[in-house]
């Protein structure tokens, strides 16, 4: 609606500016584009074209403009307006919106029309796989992931700069990881491990995958390998990666090995150290729940300014800053700011007064978007804590129950604390073995395994009289 009002007000003004131009054959938006005011030109382009029939040249121009501005801005436009422009970019964004509205048929139709050579084709396939997942069409979902991978790989090879190459690498890896997740869901654990292993250690995604791989090993019954992978998070290189679920999985794996004391140590640590910090943090964040800029500002707050209980925020913020979404949005804000400065410096008052307020509004929208995304990420992280707290409490009860049963049956576990042994390490022919010497080595990260023996065998307790 906001856009429509701006659109109509500009519609009256734009012919006036067009008349001021030296070359009358050029429209106002083309003049702006020539001066590299891409964000202003995009808005003018829509005002000039939306009321008339669209020709192929118009569509080509739109794609050219979107190449510079990115498609993030289109999120603010009415879908009915975008439908008028049948380009791959608009179809991609409309397909994405249809998926969010759960209009799966419409989403498939729009995403299917993204051209195979287009820069959003790979990401379109990723979204298409999500639609198939919702429809429980797992065969098609796998096919879409494979198409996404091959397209992203091809585009990465022909990327014009390193940044674009990195974007395609990210899309490729997400599709590969989603394939691994698909295998996990259908209980093809070996295939899942193979797919996860294809992600290189220097990848941005890699630290996140340790937890997922640990779950796969857990489901395979290899608790030592699961624990070894989770140990990797203790490395100084990965100290910004804290996942409450990793603590839970470690406690659960120790429990499965009947190493109750180890499991209880993790549970107690969670209750005594992490939970109070989460609670104080929760209070602080909820106070600013409705702020339009608090979370945006938090993203740029110096690490030293954050209180001790905000340590987790620092970690989450560091992780969020590495996201493609943040880079795109922040880059857009930077480019809009630059464009505003150039208009302020080089243009006449009338043009300035018409272009700058619109750009300021777009910039505010982008800031609000970053603020919203940061808020969502932080609260989603905090929401896990009560759930995992209750799961750890259940685990605690289960351990107490097991211990009670042993006492009643006059039995005890075979050892108070199982010691590691090489014979308990399961490995394939491609996995080497070195002893852990108390230091984390970067090339070893993610390949750790504990050698703990299952302690689940019980022996009858010997009474004092029997002992004599």
């Amino acid at each position, binding site marked *: 609606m906001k856009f429509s009002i701006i659109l109509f007000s500009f519609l009256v003004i734009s012919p006036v500016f067009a008349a001021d131009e030296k070359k009358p054959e050029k429209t106002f938006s083309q003049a702006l584009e020539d001066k590299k005011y891409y964000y202003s030109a995009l808005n003018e382009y829509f005002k000039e074209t939306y009321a008339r029939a669209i020709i192929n040249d118009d569509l080509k121009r739109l794609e050219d403009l979107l190449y510079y501005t990115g498609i993030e801005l289109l999120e603010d436009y009415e879908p009915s307006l975008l439908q008028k422009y049948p380009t791959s970019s608009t179809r991609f964004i409309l397909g994405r919106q249809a998926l969010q509205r759960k209009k799966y048929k419409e989403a498939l139709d729009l995403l299917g029309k993204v051209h195979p050579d287009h820069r959003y084709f790979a*990401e379109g396939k*990723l*979204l298409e796989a999500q639609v198939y*997942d919702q429809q429980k069409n797992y065969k098609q979902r796998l096919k879409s992931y494979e198409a996404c991978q091959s397209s992203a790989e091809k585009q990465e090879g022909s990327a014009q700069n390193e940044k674009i190459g990195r974007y395609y690498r990210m899309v490729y890896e997400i599709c590969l990881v989603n394939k691994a997740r698909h295998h996990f869901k259908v209980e093809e654990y070996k295939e899942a491990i193979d797919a996860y292993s294809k992600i290189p250690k220097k990848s941005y995604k890699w630290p996140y995958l340790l937890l997922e791989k640990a779950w796969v090993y857990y489901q395979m019954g290899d608790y030592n390998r699961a624990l070894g992978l989770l140990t990797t998070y203790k490395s100084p290189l990965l100290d910004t990666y804290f996942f409450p679920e990793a603590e*839970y999985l470690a406690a659960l794996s120790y429990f499965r090995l009947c190493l109750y004391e180890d499991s209880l140590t993790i549970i107690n640590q969670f209750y005594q150290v992490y939970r109070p910090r989460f609670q104080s943090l929760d209070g602080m964040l909820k106070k600013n729940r409705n702020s339009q800029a608090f979370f945006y500002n938090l993203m740029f707050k110096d690490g030293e300014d954050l209180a001790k209980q905000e340590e987790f925020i620092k970690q989450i913020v560091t992780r969020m800053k590495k996201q493609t979404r943040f880079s795109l949005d922040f880059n857009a804000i930077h480019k809009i700011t630059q464009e505003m400065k150039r208009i302020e410096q080089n243009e006449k008052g009338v043009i300035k007064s018409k272009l700058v307020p619109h750009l300021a509004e777009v910039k505010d929208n982008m800031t609000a978007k970053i603020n919203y995304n940061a808020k969502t990420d932080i609260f989603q992280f905090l929401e896990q804590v009560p759930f*995992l707290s209750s799961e750890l409490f*259940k685990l605690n009860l289960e351990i107490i129950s097991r211990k009670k049963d042993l006492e009643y049956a006059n039995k005890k576990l075979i050892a108070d604390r199982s010691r590691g042994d090489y014979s308990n390490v399961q490995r394939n022919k491609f996995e080497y073995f070195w002893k852990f010497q108390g230091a984390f080595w970067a090339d070893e990260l993610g390949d750790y395994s504990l050698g703990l023996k299952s302690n689940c065998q019980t022996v009858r307790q010997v009474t004092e009289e029997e002992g004599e």
Partner: protein
Amino acid sequence: MRIFIYALSMVMISNAFGQEEKVIYQYKKYEKFDLGNLEVKGQLIAPGDISVRERERRRFELDLFSRKDFDAFIKKDVESLR
């Protein structure tokens, strides 16, 4: 004649009511069993000593969270792109 029939029927009805009132049910207040005298005929097939086969007690575990899919992770990854 009519009078006679009425009189007869009245006599019969009054007799019937009179009979119902007289029925008294009584139950035994005390019964004695002499267990020593009771005899059961049959063959003794029970084992000589009492033995119980030991079996594992069925134990019920709490429904602990165990991840079966990463659907939420997939959604988050897609959202993290733009």
